[in-house]
């Protein structure tokens, strides 16, 4: 059965960015109903009951996050919308914000109503100029139509939304880095605890959510939690800690495919389906060698693992860090994995914020090794060093403040474990710029 897009339903329509177009498609009706019939707590309960998990990468249950705010706080409480979308090859939020900003805005208002936030900051990365302008226009329209500002639709609830344009750093996508950046400081992630829900922007309780998550909030309130739960993958009964992967997800397909782009599918689609059915297959009639399943920091997947479902647990079962942003980057059989890893390491050494020693020096070190490797001066010992350095940096072993280092280590670890033979061949053959595909190593 073909899946009918919900989040992207309006993308492609001529007036998708205007408030008239949005209202013609039933926009802001959910908001009006919620403001009239529901309390904030009820909205939170519905979202919690739907099992919505954050679409930003970590997959933390959204409703649960909202309940972490201190009870009875006199305010102000803030919502920060994280549109820093800096994970390479990820552009699902870009499509939402550029093409259907009112859906995101409705989600923002609903979320703020749920946890009584009076101010929302729409933190958008500098590169998204179109998105920034689209959202600013949407906000202006919403103010004019009475969906923002004082006493929204006569409900007594007031909300202001501000667009804040980032200056372009990967680390600003980390929620506390984003908050620091919003406060006008260097985006150095904060020590947690306290978590932002307790002490966030301007030392006040703050919730940081992704636009896709907020768009989902609109759809949950519009169509009900049961509709949401009918999509996706239910929790694994054998794993009591699994919260399930319900709902639609925007997958980004990029790399060596015929039709790169964003596609909305139920959670749990496999990589192979995604590439073949929605990405038009690997380009130039070639075979795939592997892919990055969810943004650079999730690690690498080999072609043999392409039947892994892309839900919140699937990539973890094949040694990847997690679903991430659901952005699949495919590389074909002629791609040198050394070049792939070189690129990944260059990215992380450039984007490490430099706060914690292991990440600052570790990412730089891994890049230096890869640079030498690519120049044909790799040594067998380097593989051990790379793997070991990658394994010991990050918030998981406890050596850094934020998860950037985990993300920097994961591709290195998985690449070396899964493509070791190719690395060894590269060392032997010297400066071959393009290595032939080799049988995948068992890992």
């Amino acid at each position, binding site marked *: 059965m073909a899946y009918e897009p919900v989040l992207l339903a309006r993308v492609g329509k001529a007036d998708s960015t205007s408030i008239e177009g949005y209202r013609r498609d039933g926009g802001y009706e959910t908001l009006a109903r919620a403001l009239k019939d529901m309390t904030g707590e009820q909205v939170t309960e519905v979202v919690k009951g739907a099992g919505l998990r954050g679409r930003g990468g970590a997959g933390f249950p959204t409703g649960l996050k909202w309940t972490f705010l201190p009870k009875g706080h006199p305010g102000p409480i803030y919502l920060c919308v994280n549109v820093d979308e800096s994970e390479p090859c990820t552009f699902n939020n870009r499509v939402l914000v550029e093409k259907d900003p009112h859906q995101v805005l409705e989600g923002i208002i609903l979320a703020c109503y749920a946890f009584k936030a009076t101010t929302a900051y729409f933190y958008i990365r500098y590169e998204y100029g179109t998105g920034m302008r689209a959202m600013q226009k949407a906000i202006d329209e919403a103010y004019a139509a009475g969906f923002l500002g004082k006493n929204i639709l006569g409900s007594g609830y007031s909300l202001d939304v501000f667009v804040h344009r980032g200056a372009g*750093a990967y*680390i600003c996508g980390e929620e506390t880095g984003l908050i620091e950046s919003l406060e006008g400081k*260097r985006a*150095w992630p904060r*020590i947690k605890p306290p978590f932002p829900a307790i002490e966030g922007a301007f030392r006040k309780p703050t919730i940081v959510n992704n636009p896709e998550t907020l768009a989902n909030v609109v759809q949950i309130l519009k169509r009900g939690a049961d509709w949401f739960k009918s999509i996706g993958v239910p929790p694994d009964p054998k794993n009591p800690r699994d919260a399930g992967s319900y709902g639609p997800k925007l997958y980004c397909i990029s790399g060596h495919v015929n039709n790169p782009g964003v596609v909305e599918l139920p959670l749990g689609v496999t990589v192979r389906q995604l590439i073949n059915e929605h990405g038009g297959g690997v380009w130039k009639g070639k075979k795939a060698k592997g892919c990055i399943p969810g943004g650079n920091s999730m690690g690498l997947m080999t072609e043999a693992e392409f039947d892994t479902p892309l839900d919140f647990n699937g990539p973890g079962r094949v040694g990847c860090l997690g679903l991430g942003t659901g952005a699949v980057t495919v590389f074909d059989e002629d791609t040198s994995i050394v070049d792939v890893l070189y690129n990944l390491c260059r990215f992380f*050494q*450039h*984007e*490490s*914020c*430099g*706060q*914690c*020693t*292991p990440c*600052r*020096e*570790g*990412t*730089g*070190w891994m890049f*230096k*090794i890869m*640079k*030498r490797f690519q120049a044909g001066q790799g040594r067998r*010992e380097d593989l051990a*060093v790379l793997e070991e350095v990658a394994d*010991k940096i990050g918030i*998981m*072993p*406890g*050596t*850094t*403040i934020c998860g950037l280092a985990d993300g920097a280590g994961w591709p290195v670890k998985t690449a070396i474990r899964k493509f070791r033979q190719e690395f060894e061949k590269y060392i032997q053959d010297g400066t071959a710029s393009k290595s032939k595909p080799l049988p995948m190593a068992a890992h």
Partner: protein
Amino acid sequence: MATVYVNDTPVDIGDEKLNCVQAAEKAGILIPHYCYHPALSVVASCRMCLVEVGDKKPDGTVAMQPKVVPGCQTPVKDGTVIITRSPKAKDAQERTLESLLLNHPLDCPVCDKAGECSLQDYSFGYGKAESRMNDEKKTPPNKPDIGANINLFTDRCIMCSRCVRFTREIAGTAELHITHRGDHAEIDVFPGDPLDNKLSTNVVDLCPVGALASKDFLYTQRVWNLKTVDSVCPGCSTGCSIHVDGNKGVVYRLRPRVNPKAQGHFMCDEGRLGYHYANSAERLREPIVRGPHGWSPVGHREAVQRTQTGFNEYSLRSITGVWGVLSPFMTVEEAYLLASWIRDFGKEARLVMGPVPVEGQDDHYPKDRRGNEIPGASKFTIRSEKCPNRKGVEAILEHFSGSVVSFDAFLAALQKGQVKAAILAGGYVPTGKGHWFPAEAVPHLDQVPFLVVHEIFKSPLSEKAHVVFPAASWAEKEGTYINHNGLAQAIHWISTPPGESRTDGQAYLDLLGRTGLMRAQQLRKEIGEKIPSLIQLSTGHLGSSGVLPGEAPPAQAPKQKIPVH
């Protein structure tokens, strides 16, 4: 009562709010750290203090956390278990050090910090013998002009950000910041806004490696050749506790000594760089007397005898013409000895306080970015009273004269020609802003039949004197300074007075006719017993942090403690 277990050693922390580093310090265990500093905010970014932490349950079982945690950021409570050298913690510490050394140039042989460098110490104690890195190190250019007194060796920096936090949190002037990201990050200043606040050189002490160097000390001495004594800065009435580092009779640098009772952790640049006069070759090196044929050097003994003879003679002629002018740069002991000597001539002999140098207003830090004071947020104060011991000398004067007579009384008497024999205790630190003795009063000195002065340098005053004693600088004497708050602190000598000169205290002791050498400890005891307002000196010991009024003085001399930086 809260008990914390550090490597199985139980430590009672009372109800203090401590982190793991502080709790371990209480147990005598050092958790290595770079970015953590007790006077600055916690950033937990160097990741050197990674330890394993757990909780001891009431039933005696211990639940350890699965990851290593930064000790500086982890608060302790009753039952916290800290393990500093478990295999996991050791591994994490080794790794952090390996990372820090990846881009560190290891130029210890030419680095000023070598010998007192945390990177050296921790590498030796916690690091690996060799690095697995065989790629090129980063070599960012040095920044010799980052401040008037500061040189930045960029490549040695380990990005602990202590200096940045200092300029933001203590000085408030926020000149320093971090540019770039990741392993290409550097400490820098904005163009045209160099690091030149009045506390700037503290960043050199804060720097755990040799990145920030004091231009004053740069390439002058290897630190292992230096001898260190605990002393007090004579620059202002804050009385900062300091370490004086010297070698072979030369003072090379002053460093702040942590003393919450005095100033905390820091000191100002003015005080820190104000020691140079003590090393000057221009100083008076022997007592000189003025005879009919001009100046001639004499021995200390003869100078003392001449002074005694002169004063005896004039005290018999006119006891009200005998004047002793004490200076706020004297130690309590010196003031006591000189006042005793003058008082011995008779009750009518006059004792006055020399001029107290005051410059501007008290200068409080942190400032805001525009340089204005932030009311009520003072973390460090440079005081306007530019002398170390006004309170101490006043206590002595009050004891001997009942009240403190100001210098104006002396000037008035001088103008009227009523001064017959006078001793002017100097020790005034030369400021470059003119001599302490008012220039318009200098001609009147011709009318004084017998004038004795104690001066560090030749001056208009010494030109007019009949006997000139070379004064010792504060680095050459021992004694007691009492700061603005009444805190009595001990100073110690690092070098001997130049040439033939003796300390001022010795001269006064000799004038009094007391035998033996001037020993501050015995005199302190004597003063404490005789003068009720200085009872805090009564044991002769002041400990390393000094004694406030009303506090019980320590019964024993402090043990010399090796400073942990």
